[in-house]
Structures are given as structure tokens and as C-alpha cells.
């Protein structure tokens, strides 16, 4: 029994991926790549994705499975970001928002959207018990497509966001103009040799993870985890399972919204239209690589998964390029193979006891 569960914790897929990461790191050293730069950009990338990966946790814990529809939250976050930029533009000459305040305003604006969308989405997921993941995937695809129309027709006036000709907002909106770019990354950032540590970004992720940790130890959090791990037991304990699943979905959506804003400030742009389409898959793959299953996940899984998967993403590209100089998409291809392979693997394990 015990031997079996020990093997389960380090199952073969995760061992292979961890070994691959180690191999990449050794290769990077052997190829004399710029290690400091690789470490810096790994840290940044892990921070960028941290909150989005964390968004998977309440969904899995509440029993709806990895949130393939976190694009809903992402879209809400983008909407909050655009609204904040619009507000800054309209209030020009009246109030000047310092960048930090504007970033908080963006988060605040995204919350009501995420809350409402999360409740509706949770309601939907309660109606499709058993096939949440597939429904979520298609909800995600659909919302991204619907929002493509919305981005064209929403009445934003800020010229920084609008196309120079025609109507609608641009595909990428630079955040540097308002001082939002890298606002978290640069907060208390410091160097060790050539390695840049994006302190603020990592602190933001740590804060989100800590709040989630506290929540999971609250009465509501416990009830949510119970509803997710054994719905019939939960009902018998007087827990209304459907409510708990909605709470989990709302939290996941809210974290998706906050997550994309954290991501965007580091990237320096808000990316609209096609961009959110495949983001959920990265987050799903990361938490699964961290050791989560579609039924069980912990904060530790989030951290391990983020470090492993995003570490691979950063290191694989230059290593692959050094090997195959004239086939530059090798890094991207290996990332896709791992991402989709891990999701596939986790889904095949889902039914097993």
C-alpha cells in the first residue's frame, strides 16, 4: 500500500520531465549559454505564470477539475486592464494616477466582471457534472472568439488602445506609456551578479499563494475541499456541494483575471484577440507536471509545476537552437509536446483509483 502510493507520488511521467529539465540545464552549461540570463528570465517567467497556475488550484480542489476555461477569467482581467487605461485617459487633467495605483485600479475593475462571470460559469459547470473539462475547454474557446467581436465594438476612446484607422482596440496595447510595464518586476528588484531577481513579481505570486493557503484552511475552504474530494460525504455532512463548486469556480476565475494582469505587466503589453486562446493549456500542464491530478492538487503542486514547466520553456529554446541552428522552432515544438503530452497523460489517469 505505502510503497504503491510512494511510487504514485513520483510517477514515471514526472520523473521523465524532471530528468529532461536537468538534462536541459546541463546542456545549457555545456553549450556555454548565458546562464545568468537564463536564470533571470526563468524567474521572470515563473512569476508571470504563477498566479495563472494557481488559478487551477481552487477549480481542482472544488471538484470541477483543471480549469480549461480560465480564459474567462483572463478576458475579465483584460477588460479590467482596458477599463483602467480608459479611466486614466478620460481623467487626464483631473486626476493623475500613479502607476501603482493604476495597476490596483485595473485589478479592482476586473474583479466584478470575474465575480459575475465566475458565478454564471460555476452554474453552468454544475449542470454538466462529469464532463466539466470538455465543457470548460469549449467555453474557453467560445469566449475568446466572442471577445474578438467585443474588442472591436466596445466604446473605448483612449488613442493608446485604438487602431489608428478604423474602430476597435489593437491586438497589443503597450503598458509602458502609463508606467505599468514591469511595475511589479521592478519593485525591490535586485541583482546577484548578472542575475536579476524580479522581487515584486515573486512577492505578488507568493502573496496570492499564501492567501490561497489561508483560504484552504478556513471553514469555507475545508468545505470546498470536502465537496471536491467526496460529494456524497459532503452532502451527508450538510455541505451544499453545488455552492462550493461555484465558490471554487469564482476563485479560479478571479485568479485568472488577476493572473493575466500580473502576466501582462511583466510582458509589457495587454494581448487581446487570439492571445488568451491557448493560455489555459499552459496553466493546466504546469499544475499537472507539479504532481496534481485532475482530482487532487495542493499549493506544492502549483509551485513545483510552475518551476519545472516554465523552467523548461525558458531553457529549452536556446538549447534547442544551439543544437539545430537552422530549425529555430525546435524549442517551441518541444514545449508543445510536453504541454499536451502531460495533459493527455493526466486525463488517462483520471479514472484510476
Amino acid at each position: 500500500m505505502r510503497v504503491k502510493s510512494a511510487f504514485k507520488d513520483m510517477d514515471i511521467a514526472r520523473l521523465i520531465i524532471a530528468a529532461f529539465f536537468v538534462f536541459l540545464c546541463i546542456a545549457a552549461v555545456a553549450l556555454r549559454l548565458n546562464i545568468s540570463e537564463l536564470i533571470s528570465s526563468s524567474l521572470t517567467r515563473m512569476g508571470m505564470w504563477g498566479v495563472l497556475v494557481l488559478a487551477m488550484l481552487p477549480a481542482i480542489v472544488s471538484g470541477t477539475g483543471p480549469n480549461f476555461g480560465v480564459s474567462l477569467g483572463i478576458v475579465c482581467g483584460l477588460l479590467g486592464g482596458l477599463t483602467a487605461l480608459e479611466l486614466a485617459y478620460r481623467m487626464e487633467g483631473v486626476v493623475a494616477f500613479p502607476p501603482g495605483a493604476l495597476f490596483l485600479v485595473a485589478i479592482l475593475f476586473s474583479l466584478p466582471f470575474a465575480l459575475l462571470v465566475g458565478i454564471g460559469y460555476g452554474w453552468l459547470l454544475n449542470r454538466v457534472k462529469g464532463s466539466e473539462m470538455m465543457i470548460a475547454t469549449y467555453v474557453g474557446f467560445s469566449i475568446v472568439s466572442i471577445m474578438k467581436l467585443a474588442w472591436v465594438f466596445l466604446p473605448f476612446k483612449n488613442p493608446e488602445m485604438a487602431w489608428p484607422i478604423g474602430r476597435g482596440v489593437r491586438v497589443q496595447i503597450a503598458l509602458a506609456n502609463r508606467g505599468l510595464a514591469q511595475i511589479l518586476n521592478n519593485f525591490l528588484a535586485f541583482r546577484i551578479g548578472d542575475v536579476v531577481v524580479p522581487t515584486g513579481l515573486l512577492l505578488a505570486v507568493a502573496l496570492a499563494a499564501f492567501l490561497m493557503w489561508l483560504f484552504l484552511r478556513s471553514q469555507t475552504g475545508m468545505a470546498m475541499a470536502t465537496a471536491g474530494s467526496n460529494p456524497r460525504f459532503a452532502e451527508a455532512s450538510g455541505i451544499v456541494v453545488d455552492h462550493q463548486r461555484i465558490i471554487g469556480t469564482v476563485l479560479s476565475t478571479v485568479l485568472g483575471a488577476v493572473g493575466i494582469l500580473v502576466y501582462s505587466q511583466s510582458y509589457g503589453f495587454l494581448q487581446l484577440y487570439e492571445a488568451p486562446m491557448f493560455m489555459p493549456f499552459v496553466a493546466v500542464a504546469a499544475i499537472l507536471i507539479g504532481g496534481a491530478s485532475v482530482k487532487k492538487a495542493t499549493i506544492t503542486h502549483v509551485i513545483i509545476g510552475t518551476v519545472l514547466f516554465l523552467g523548461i520553456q525558458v531553457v529549452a529554446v536556446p538549447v534547442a537552437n544551439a543544437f539545430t541552428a537552422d530549425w529555430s522552432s525546435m524549442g517551441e515544438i518541444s514545449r508543445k509536446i510536453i504541454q499536451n503530452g502531460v495533459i493527455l497523460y493526466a486525463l488517462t489517469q483520471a479514472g484510476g483509483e
Partner: protein
Amino acid sequence: MAVEPILRMKGISKSYYGTKVLDSINLSIMPGEVHGIVGENGAGKSTLMNILFGMSVIHSTGGFEGSIEIAGQPVEIKSPLQAMSLGIGMVHQEFMLLPNYSVAENIKLNREVLKPNFISRIFGPKLQSLDYDQMYADSRKALERLNIGIDEYALIAGLPVGHMQFTEIARELDKQNLRILVFDEPTAVLGESEADHLLQAIKEIAASGIAVLFITHRLNEIIEVCDNITVLRDGRHVTTKAKQDTNVIELAELMVGRSMSFATRQRQSSHQGRPIMEIKNLSVDMPGERVRGVNLTVYEGEILGIGGLAGQGKIGIANGIMGLFPTSGEVKVSGASLELNNPSASIAAGLAFMSEDRRGVGLLLDSSIELNIASGAMFGTGRFVKTWGPFSQVDQAAIRENAEKYIADLDIRCTGPKQHVRQLSGGNQQKVCIARALTMNPKILLVSEPTRGIDVGAKQLVLATLRRLNAELGMTIVVTSSELAELRSICTRIAIITDGRVAGILRPDDSDVNFGLLMAGQPIDKGA
């Protein structure tokens, strides 16, 4: 009458994983005989039939001992298909019918009458068409033997259950080589008039020379149709009697018997507390265990047993009171009306429940012992939670302390409070359930099948614990169990549930006859 028995089973024994469930059963049936088999749940009736049918569950668990002869020929039945070709038919308890096919199509399923056509002449017999006219005619003939007005063209989907049952029987009758027909609790789903009709049909089937094996727990039916009756108890062959040599009362006594392993509880000094829970006209829509109007009063400080055969609704009562299945009626706890269909309300009213489905409903298998023990009280009453305004945090230290107390008190064998419940044995899991219920500090403890799936030693421990709680803490306990002996060893009163209603309430030291009669749905004389 030097006729050879059509079926003879000799010295049939069967063990599942070292537990003997059948012990040298002998059975022989003449052509045209109706032979009844009676016994409680777990007496071995279904195992015996599984052997006769060569079901794979028998062969995958090491086969059986003994021999089977059909018409004097020793046979080895390895599969249901072979059983059918030997002329053994079975009318199942659950219907095996395709709802969107007609009665005739179901009767002829996989034995369709075929006729050649243009394409089949070229491409072979696999492509022959169905001869519907012949199929309908054959079905008509089979249905007429049953004397029942079912339209062979009708779709199964719209038929009443009784007609589905007759369709199943017609399917067996239509098989030309049928020599032995087994009825497994055929009247369980039928109304009274349909049941009478069925018994009539059984007599006629037997009159045509087919041997009938009739399994039921309704003793009056057995007496009415059977020529000979075999009683099984705990896997042993108790007796075989001719109908004229026995009666319902004797059969009831033989069926229940007295188990050696438990001592019957002595009658209590007849002090009764005040009523703590009053149940009026309770109906529970629990699949397979429907409750149809139970009236019952539970008195403070007693251990009330709820017994009865499987499927009669005893399990549904506690599940209904706890709000786990759609429920109607009225329940009062300490005089206050209980809101039904709401588990939180039941918990708030001071009820705690140990489910019969321990691994499914009773426990969080992949969580720690301490969390399992604390969870009921945590969600029900907010114990183990520290709150600051809208924020709360679980009090890990209090949870640990509580778990350690119960691990010591109830002697839960584990590596520590952090161990996952899945790794514990059945008996220790049950102790965790008890600890969980006690932590909720209930006024009334509802316990369903407390000893199901745990070994004998652990059974005694669990029962002793329940008894101790009652004696030392004065806790009111309602125990539902399929094992009558177990109820008789700990309860002060035992309500027997038959057909979703209370058939009667007995004392643990009442006679076996009375228990047997109530379980078989017979009224008992008040004088008995």
C-alpha cells in the same frame, strides 16, 4: 413413477476468499415439480443459482465442489450459454429487456426466426431477414401459455412492470428445449393480483412437465405453489420438506434459526424514556430501498433496531431522516418538527449518521484520520474553527487533540492521526466513523449496517462500543442492520420493515417464528 430427477445437485460447496458460503447442499427436482428455496439474505440462494448457471463469478473465484446431473447425465456448466443449451432458463429479478423493442422482438432476442432473401442467397445466411410473422406467432403462443393479455406488438418501454416480468417468462417458455426454469424472487416487483396470476402461471408451466425452481422470501407463496421446499440458512442445507408436511410458521422458524455467535440481549427493566423522535408517515425515495409510510417512535436512551430483508426499505429510513434522499412525511425531534430533505437541518437537530456505504458516503478515504473525525462537527456546528469576523481558520491543534483522544478511546489501530483512512482495515474505518459521529455530540445516533464488510472480531468490538455508548452516556441509538442476530444482541426493541412499512415491533427475545413471519410479510397473532 420411476422417473429420473431432471436436476440433481450433490454436495455443492463454495468458498469466496476462504469464507464458506455454501456447505454441501443437496437438491433434486423431478420434471413437473415446483421446488421452493427459502432463506434470508446471505443464506446462499443466489450463489447456488450462480453455480447452476455457470456464472463467471463462480469460476473466477476458484469454482465449486460437488456435482450437477441433468436428467441423469453428469454435466459441467461453464457458462450461462451452456446452461441455456442444457435447457435451464432463468427469470431474473432485474429485467433484461430492451425498452425500445417490441414484446415479440424481446422474446425472440438473439434467437430470431430468419428467412432467406435475395441478398442472403448471394452473401450468406448472416444477411437473412427476420421472419416477423413467425416471430409474432411464436410470441403469441408463449404468452398464451401464461394466460396473459399482453400485446406482442407493444413496445417494452410503456409496459407496466408486471407485464415486463411476464415477457421475461415468455422468453424462457419460447425456448423449445426448456427443461428447468428458475424464478428468482419473481413477485418482488409485482402487485398482489399480478403475483397471483404469476403463481397460477407457474403451476401451469410445471403441469407441462417443466421443473420449476422458485426462490422467494414470501412464505405464503411458497406454500401455495411448491411441491417441495428447501430451506437454506448461513450456506447450510437446513431441510427439505414436502408441502403437506410443513406450514408457514415452521418455515419461518427454520429460516431465521438462531445464530450461535451472538447472545441475545436480555430483556431490559421495562422503563421507557420519553419519546425523543417521532416519525409519521415517512416515505423515502431511495432506489432499491423505498420507504412507503413508516410510523415509528424512538424513546430516549434506547437502542432501537431496524431489521428486515434487503430491498424492503429498512436502509431508506435513516437515509431519509438525514435528508440524503427525497423524503416526505413528518419527523419530530424532541418535539420540534424537522425540516426534511436538508442534511444541515438534520445535523443541527442533533442527529448523527453512520452510513451503510462507509467508503462512499461515510469517509473521506484520501484524507487523514483526524480530519475525518473532525469534519462532521466542523461543518455541522462550527467546532474546531476559530473565527475573526468573516475570516476563519481551522484549529489544527484542537483537531489533533480530539483525534488522539478517540484513537485511544476506541483503540483505532493506525500509525497516527495523520494516516489516510483508506489504509485502515474495515473495522478501524468503522471506528473512525463512530469517532466522527461522537465528535458531533449527537442526541440521536443513526447507525446503518455497522458491521458490514468487517471481520468477526471487529464486529464484536463495534457492537460492544455501541452498547457502551448507550449504557455509559445514555445515548439514543437507532441501528439498521441486515443481520438479525446482531440486532437481537444489542437492541431493546426491533422494528421489522417489510415492503417499506413497519411490519411489527418485537423484543430481542421474541421467538424466531415471529421474526420470520414479520420478515416474510405475514401478520403474527398477538398472543404469540
